[in-house]
């Protein structure tokens, strides 16, 4: 099979999820879709775009987390241990949209959102653009 490249655009990781106060919600939990390349594929230079909507009375930031897996999701990194990616400073009552580059090639990526507010739920969504190489040989 020839090596190819597939363009990925507006691919949804989380459509619209709530994160409870002082909790982390992952794409691998109910409702999301992790980035999990097929057997002969690998992702390449993906840019995540995350949208976070803060409660009007929120005072806690949102934290973007990323974790990988060396076995396509069977064993994921431990949540909140070296999974920090970016802080999205609280902007009460507003929706903030930020991008985060995942440089290079990878096989698996789980995306999480932590709500640092002690009282209020936040809403988030995530999609990405990028590419994946296809038609790779396997061993």
């Amino acid at each position, binding site marked *: 099979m020839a090596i*190819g*490249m*597939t*363009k*990925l*655009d*507006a*691919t949804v990781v989380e459509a619209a999820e709530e994160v409870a106060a002082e909790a982390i919600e992952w794409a691998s939990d109910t409702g999301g879709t992790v980035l999990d390349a097929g057997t002969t594929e690998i992702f*390449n*230079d993906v*840019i*995540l*775009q995350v*949208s976070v909507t803060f409660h009007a009375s929120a005072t806690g930031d949102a934290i973007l987390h990323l974790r990988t897996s060396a076995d396509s999701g069977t064993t994921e990194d431990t949540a909140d241990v070296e999974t920090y990616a*970016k802080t*999205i*400073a609280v902007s009460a009552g507003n*929706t*903030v*949209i*930020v*991008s985060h*580059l995942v*440089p290079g090639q990878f096989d698996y990526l789980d995306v999480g959102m932590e709500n640092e507010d002690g009282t209020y739920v936040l809403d988030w969504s995530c*999609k*990405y*653009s*990028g*590419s994946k190489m*296809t038609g790779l040989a396997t061993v």
Partner: protein
Amino acid sequence: MAIGITKLDATVVEAAESVAASSIEWASDTGGTVLNAGTTEIYTGVTLQVSVAFHADAVGDGILHVRHSADSGTTEDTEDVSTYAKTIAVVPSTTIIVSYHIPYMFDYLDVGMENEDAAEVLTWSCKYVGSKLTGLATV
């Protein structure tokens, strides 16, 4: 369709735009052209070259901003939240030219110039060199 590479040279993002005092002007505003790859394309190895002309009485710097979109521009990152790229230190009455490299593949890039001067307009332009991969598959 075979994968190809297209060379891009002296491609204009902004020809000559004014930025009002204490504001940001984006390529996606009137007069500019964002970098927005076609359905089967993706940019790679792009270097922006920005020219900033400061007023004779200017005391505020120019700030280069870049922002992405995971859906070809429908949803852009929130202005001034994680969009900072580079500071161009003020030199009154002088045109300063700097380059900024985007070291990864991307589908969409909007370029903005912030004028930190509280009183005087600045003038900027931007072009780029790089390449894009073409003939990618889509899903």
